[in-house]
């Protein structure tokens, strides 16, 4: 139960961050917001995959895919932080 709740919360929190950042990117167009927004979208997806893995399709193991999505998301964020965070 706790896993379910925590991962749903994670999906929602990451999703919220993604929406706020991507929406802001829409008007401000600072690329840091794009990479960060995509990262949080990826983290939301990763969390959603955990829920799917454990509760929706328990016979298929999505563990590796969960990690791939989360890792890709974090790489996007770090890329954005390194190359775009000093952009004025």
């Amino acid at each position, binding site marked *: 139960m706790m896993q379910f709740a925590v991962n749903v919360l994670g999906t929602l929190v990451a999703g919220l*961050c993604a929406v*706020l*950042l991507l*929406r*802001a*990117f829409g*008007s*401000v*167009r*600072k*690329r*840091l*917001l794009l990479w*960060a927004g995509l990262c949080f979208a990826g983290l939301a997806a990763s969390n959603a995959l955990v829920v799917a893995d454990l509760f929706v399709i328990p016979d298929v193991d999505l563990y590796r895919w969960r990690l791939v999505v989360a890792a890709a998301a974090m790489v996007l964020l770090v890329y954005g932080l390194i190359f*775009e*965070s*000093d*952009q*004025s």
Partner: protein
Amino acid sequence: MTSSTTEIPVHVRRFLEENIDTVPQLETLLMMYEDPDRGWENSDVASRNYITEPRATDTLNALQRRGLVIAEGTPLRFRFNPANEEVRALVAELALCYQRKLSAITQLIHSKPSASVKEFARAFDLKKDR
């Protein structure tokens, strides 16, 4: 050499930190404040401040989002238009301050993280539609 940023009054400092991310933003704002009845086109701002037109657009849009200037007409012209009298007074004080303590103010602007970082923070500010 005393720390020059302490010479700037606290409320001016705060206004700067919340509304001004770059020196072109500051200079554009003050330029428009000094000529409040004039409508400025993107190209005017670009040539007066020695920045590219895309940068000028960026700057004007940022000032508009913060309720400091207003856009009207076709072709699009921007005019100094503070959200309220308090803001107008702050800009006036900032203008005075900038005349006297130019290096302190530019130093303050450059010492803060970039506009991108500030926009990241603003993205989470739901109170105002910035």
